[in-house]
């Protein structure tokens, strides 16, 4: 038993549209608590109160492949953090190892500043490339953390093993670190090195957990439902040989 990619795409599209309309205002529909997002929210508020800065790392995965989805989750977080902290003394800073992501980060920040009516405070240095290879990106991000220029780091993007250097530096500087990636080895590193790691698909829930809009909540619900459908199919497929030849199947 299998689902073709076309059917999976059509199902996901249907569920996103369905959940965008159905049950969006139902107060009983709440997502499970994820500690990383709670702590991140606390650190955003703390940074606004004490005038310190947060770093949003977008990784160096680029936009020409499936790894771009993780970076888009990071951009969503950047927009939400900028919405809250843009007019503080130390607005959030976005770091990346990819030129196209730098442009998107600057564009995201610029549009947020414009929407908040503080366009004149925007500075293109707030969205910067710290290096153009994964390790040089990490090395370039280290001074920001070790100089205590940032209170905490949210590393949401397509990172590789180099994320261990950034998270390790953040630990040494007693800064808060959360992070998630689309790569399993990076998730394992973050599990050990970050204060609050995002494991598996939690990174794609960033928008829904930071109130980025109804579409993010609808897509998270559709993800959950599709996952249950796939789990059911896997169990049925695994159990099917047991019933082969029995009366139930006949």
């Amino acid at each position, binding site marked *: 038993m299998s689902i073709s990619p076309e059917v999976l795409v059509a199902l996901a599209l249907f569920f996103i549209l369905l959940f965008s309309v159905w049950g969006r205002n139902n107060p009983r529909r709440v997502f499970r608590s994820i500690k990383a997002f709670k702590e991140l929210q606390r650190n955003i508020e703390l940074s606004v109160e004490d005038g310190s800065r947060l770093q949003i790392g977008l990784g160096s995965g680029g936009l020409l492949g499936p790894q771009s*989805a993780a970076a888009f989750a990071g951009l969503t977080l950047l927009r939400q953090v900028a919405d809250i902290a843009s007019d503080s003394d130390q607005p959030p800073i976005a770091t990346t190892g990819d030129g196209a992501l730098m442009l998107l980060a600057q564009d995201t920040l610029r549009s947020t500043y414009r929407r908040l009516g503080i366009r004149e405070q925007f500075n293109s240095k707030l969205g910067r490339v710290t290096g153009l290879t994964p390790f040089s990106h990490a090395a370039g991000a280290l*001074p920001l953390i070790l100089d205590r220029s940032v209170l905490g780091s949210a590393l949401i993007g397509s990172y590789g093993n180099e994320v261990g250097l950034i998270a*390790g530096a953040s630990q040494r500087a007693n800064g808060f670190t959360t992070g998630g990636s689309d790569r399993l080895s990076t998730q394992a590193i973050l599990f*050990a090195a970050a204060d609050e790691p995002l494991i598996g698909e939690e990174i794609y829930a960033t928008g829904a957990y930071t109130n980025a809009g109804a579409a993010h909540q609808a897509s998270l619900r559709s993800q959950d439902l599709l996952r249950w459908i796939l789990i059911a199919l896997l169990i049925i497929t695994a159990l099917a040989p047991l019933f082969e030849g029995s009366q139930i199947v006949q």
Partner: protein
Amino acid sequence: MRTGIRAPVSTAVAIAVGFLVLISLLIPGLEDLRNQILNWAILLAAIALLLGLANLFQVHFNKVRDREKPVYSSILLVAMLVTFGLTLWQGSQGDVPKWIFNNLQLPIETGLMAVLAVSLTIAAARFFQSRSDLMGFVFIGALFIALLAAAPVFGLELPIFTQVVGPIINSLSISAARGLLIGVGLGTLATGLRILLGADRPYGG
């Protein structure tokens, strides 16, 4: 001049191009169109790489100008200009750019890899100190068993780990990895569809 129509136009272009690529994957005969669009995207990514380089230069130039740790930034700027100039002159396969890559960039990145190994060992030790919950014990236990199963300890191979426990842990980790990958795949699909629907606009439109 600001026309006020930039955001809707950029949104419409992004959605239209996204749908064209998606449709070309589902309907045979549209491969040429898809390849053309992807070639444009690759070209734009190359231009964005140059802009990223310019941003890196600008940030460090400002640091030198503002006397904010100027030594490191000066070294970076000189190295960047020399490498960029020589690569333009000789091409990426030229003798000097290849020498720079093999004798400077490669050893430095390998050195960072070594630092990473130490950094992760310290992180694992701190992890054990700070998180003494069930998942912490599972993580540390799995780490030790995987290490014992993967490599002999002081030259002494322990069959219980290499032949019995190791394969069990291996199959458990493969199952878990597949579960995580299903989640990542669904998340990627949902993100892509959200952007195609224009509900998520990472381009500030």
